[in-house]
Each structure stands twice: as structure tokens, then as C-alpha cells.
């Protein structure tokens, strides 16, 4: 932008109006995002605890040393990682598959698109509550009897949400159910943006469907897929609602997450500084993922 050296009164007035127009939003972002963010970083270096008689002290990295020495927090980070590495690929492949299936003009396709997108409008807390019952223990549980049916009776009923091995996968499945439609719609839009000429050219070259998919669809969908993976990965690290409602982090930390630990610290135990430090770790992870995404995408097209 080139600022004019001499600004007329009219331009000055317009500039003032611009400041006035953006002020409410900028003030909001400053007060409710920037300040708390800086406060989170600052608090993470202290010992602040609500209602504590101890004086406020600067601890440096002590708080971070403590949380990384805490087995529950390490478990939480590991769980977030496991969640990301399982849910992201599964959900993306499922969404891509659905999008490919639904990317044609046959009668009734719109109906199916609606159907697969529907869970997206369900609040996560409601989804979590419904899936608590789906994972009900005993042979009468819906998931148990479904697995029994598809395994021809080989499945023995388990108590998913109280089983250290199955609780996290149960939460993963719940999340995939709710999140797939969101990804599907974005991928579908990406598919529809691919110029038809590319497929025609490939067809003239004698490329079969499978080859067309590898050589036209996937490369053209690259940025869309990168974006979808980025968003889902970040969501995986923000995981909280399902854990709070379905398992409370249990059994034995099997489903605890960084955010769940942070809320436990800051609210259940009033350790504001400790909670703040944990959320700073969460932010750093999100930052790292976004940075990686930008490196991978590299192209000038901006996403997020």
C-alpha cells in the first residue's frame, strides 16, 4: 500500500471512518483473544492458584517441567496423538469415499448427501450422550449386538466405555460419525471444482477410472485434502466434549486429553497457572500442525 504524502481532509475523514468501522471487532479480538492469550503464556510461568494463601511467584519453566513429569498429562498428550493418527486418516478416507460416491448426477443423490451431512448439525454433547447408550454394556447394547451380528456370534459383549482398551476407540468412532459429513461436503466441493477437460483428456489418453483417480482427481484435490486433514488434526487436539460426557477421562486416564487435564487442573483443583501452561502446550501443537500444513501446501492459495 502506498500512503499518499499529502492527505486531503476528505481522505483523513475517510481514514477515521475506517478506524471507527473496524474498532469494535479489533477491540473484541484484543480483549477476548489477544489479552487472554498473552495472559496464558504469562500465567504458565507462575504459581497462580485461586484462593491460595501463597504469594504469586515467577516460576520460569517449572510449571512446564511439572506437567511433563505428570503421567496423566503425558498420557493425555499420547491420547490426543493416538486420536489424531487414527481419526484423521480413517475419517478422511471415509469422507473421500463418500464424496466420490456422491459426486455424480443420478436421481436421489441429493437425498444421500443430506443424509451423510446430517450428523454435522448435531451438537457434540448430544452425539456423545446418544453414543453412551449405543455403547451400553451387555448383550443388549446396540454396538455389542451389532458386532455380534456382523461377526456371526464371535463377538463377546464388552463394556466399551469402562474398558481401558476400548474406551478411546469408542470416542474415536463417535467423533468420526459426527465429523465425516463436514469433510465430505468440502471434498465434494473440491471434486466439483476439477475441470471436466482434465478427465476428458485423460479418457482420450485411454486412462482407466483407477488411473484417472490417481493422476487427475488426487493431484487436483491436493489442497482440499491438506486443508481437511489440517482442520481434523487440530480438532483432534482440542478434544474435550466427548471425553467429559462419555468417560470423564477414564478408565485410569485411558481417554484423558490435554484439554480435559487443563480443565481438571484449572477448575477442579483451582490451579490456574498449571491449566494455563497445559493450554499453551495445546496451542504450540496447533501452531506446529498449521506450520507443517503451510510447508506441505506451499502454494499461494490460502487456507486458514
Amino acid at each position, binding site marked *: 500500500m502506498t500512503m499518499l504524502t499529502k492527505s486531503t481532509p476528505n481522505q483523513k475523514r475517510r481514514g477515521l471512518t475506517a478506524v471507527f468501522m473496524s474498532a469494535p471487532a479489533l477491540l473484541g479480538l484484543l480483549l477476548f483473544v489477544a489479552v487472554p492469550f498473552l495472559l496464558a503464556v504469562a500465567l504458565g510461568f507462575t504459581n497462580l492458584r485461586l484462593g491460595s494463601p501463597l504469594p504469586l511467584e515467577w516460576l520460569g519453566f517449572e510449571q512446564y517441567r511439572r506437567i511433563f513429569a505428570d503421567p496423566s498429562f503425558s498420557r493425555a498428550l499420547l491420547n490426543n496423538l493416538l486420536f489424531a493418527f487414527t481419526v484423521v486418516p480413517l475419517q478422511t478416507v471415509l469422507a473421500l469415499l463418500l464424496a466420490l460416491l456422491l459426486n455424480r448426477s*443420478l436421481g436421489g443423490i441429493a437425498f444421500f448427501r443430506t443424509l451423510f*451431512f*446430517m450428523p454435522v448439525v448435531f451438537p457434540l454433547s*448430544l*452425539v456423545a*450422550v446418544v453414543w453412551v447408550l449405543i455403547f451400553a454394556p451387555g448383550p443388549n*447394547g446396540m454396538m455389542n449386538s451389532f458386532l455380534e451380528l456382523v461377526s456371526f456370534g464371535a463377538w463377546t459383549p464388552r463394556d466399551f466405555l469402562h474398558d481401558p482398551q476400548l474406551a478411546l476407540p469408542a470416542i474415536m468412532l463417535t467423533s468420526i460419525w459426527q465429523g465425516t459429513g463436514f469433510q465430505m461436503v468440502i471434498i465434494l466441493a473440491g471434486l466439483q471444482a476439477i475441470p471436466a477437460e482434465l478427465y476428458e483428456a485423460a479418457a482420450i489418453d485411454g486412462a482407466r477410472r483407477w488411473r484417472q483417480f490417481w493422476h487427475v482427481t488426487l493431484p487436483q484435490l491436493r489442497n482440499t485434502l491438506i486443508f481437511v486433514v489440517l482442520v481434523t488434526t487440530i480438532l483432534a487436539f482440542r478434544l474435550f466434549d466427548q471425553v*467429559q460426557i462419555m468417560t470423564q477421562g477414564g478408565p485410569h486416564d485411558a481417554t484423558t486429553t490435554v484439554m480435559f487435564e487443563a480443565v481438571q487442573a*484449572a477448575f477442579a483443583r483451582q490451579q490456574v497457572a498449571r491449566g494455563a501452561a497445559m493450554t499453551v502446550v495445546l*496451542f504450540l501443537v496447533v501452531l506446529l500442525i498449521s506450520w507443517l500444513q503451510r510447508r506441505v501446501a506451499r502454494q499461494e492459495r490460502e487456507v486458514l
Partner: protein
Amino acid sequence: MSRSAGVPLFYLSLLLLGLLFISPIGFMLAGSLKPDARVLVEAGDWRVFWPAGLSLDNYLDVFARVDFVRYLLNSLFINGMIVGVGLLVNSLAGYAFARLQWRGRELLFGLVLAVMIIPLEAIAVPLFYMVSLAGWRDTYLVQILPFIANAFSIYLFYTYFIGMPRELEEAARIDGAGPLRTFFTIIVPNAKPVFASVAILTFLTQWGAFLWPLMVTSSEAVRPLPLAIATFHSLPPLQWGDIFAFGVMMVAPILVVFLLFQRWFVRGVVATGIKG
């Protein structure tokens, strides 16, 4: 494989997948309409989707046990304010960044883009501390105010406005209209799609808000639906029919809006992934 054999097969697999996908919703809907005792007992076979009795008792039970209408109104008010005031505030900022020349514009816009990456979770603890000091806990205000200014909304408005032809504004400017009047009389009427996308996207992300209300509210009077269903779920006696009835009533309004304005929902979601 010939085309003619492929199509029925295609529909069949789609139908199976679709049924599997909506089975949790069918479970909830059927369960809300049958006696409590049968919800659990019948969850293990085909009767799981059968609304035996078609009774509205569970729905009446919900109203008898909790103040459902109150939660619904709370949610509608909180989200209405966030969406409505947010549209105004963020579109104004988006326009100032996209079209007006002013000192500090580039720097501030860079900061807006930087702030976009900070998730609520990363600032929830200190934000909670701040609003506690301010004495705002357990109010509507604390559930609305922090979410009005939204960096991503500003960005979406910005990308849309910057793509609009300049001629319209030039004409208004020659007529002597200031930026504010130009914005409201020329820009807003010609930018309905972006307003709809941002409104729906904001609504979708805020309607399910759970973490923040959980942190800052303690009384029923200001609680929104997503928190209320979690509380209702843990409220003895555990009656699944009632819980499902609560769930159906909670999701029905948004589902109706979704089915009516589906095109816009999809557009709103796609706007997150595609520039402009």
C-alpha cells in the same frame, strides 16, 4: 462391469451405508417415542428402531422434570446475539480492511490473521480468570461478548468484499456518500451470500458450545441446551426415553432450518475450505 449392472449395485451400497450412518438418529427417535423400560431392553435387536406405542410420555416427562423451554430460549438468545451482532461488527471490519485506505491497516490485518489460529481452548483458562475477576460468571453476557468479534468471519468478509467490482462504490462516492453509507446501501445488499455463509457457519460452531458454558455457568437460568442435555443425562433417575426426547427436541429446530436452507449450510461449510 457394465453400466446397467453398476447402478443398482451403487444404490444398494449407498443405501446400506446410509442406513448404517443414520442408525444412531433412528435409535434416538424411536427411543424417544417408547416406554423407558423398553429402550434398553430392545436396543439389541431390530426393535431398536421400532417406536413401540408411539407415546409422547417421554416428551411430557422432560417438561415435567426440567425447564426445557428456558434452555431453548437461552440457546436461541445467546446464538442469535452472537450471530446478529457478529455479522455487523465483523463485516464492518472486513470492509474497512478490504476497501478503505488507512494507517495501520496492513499491520492490523496481519494481526487478525495471526489471531485466527488461536483456538478457544488455548485461552479458556485465562479468559475464565478474567471474566471471574470482572464478576461476569453465570450471565448471558459472558457467553456472548467474547464470541462476537471473530477473526475468521472478518477474513471471510474480507475475501468476499475484495472480489467485488469497484464500479458500484465509485458511483456512490461520486454522489458524495461516505464509507459507512456506501457499505450499508451498496455493499450489504450485494453481498448476501457471504452474510448467509458467515451466519450459518457461526451458528453451526456456536450452537453446540459446551466447554465455555460448562466453565462459566452454574445456574439453570442461563444454561444453553448442549450443557443442559449433559446435565439431564446425569440427573437421576436415569431414563433413556426422556434423554432421547430431550435430544430430539434439542436437534429438531436446527434440523428443520438445515433442511430448509441446506444449500446455504453447505455453502457455509465449503467457505471454510475454499478461499473467497
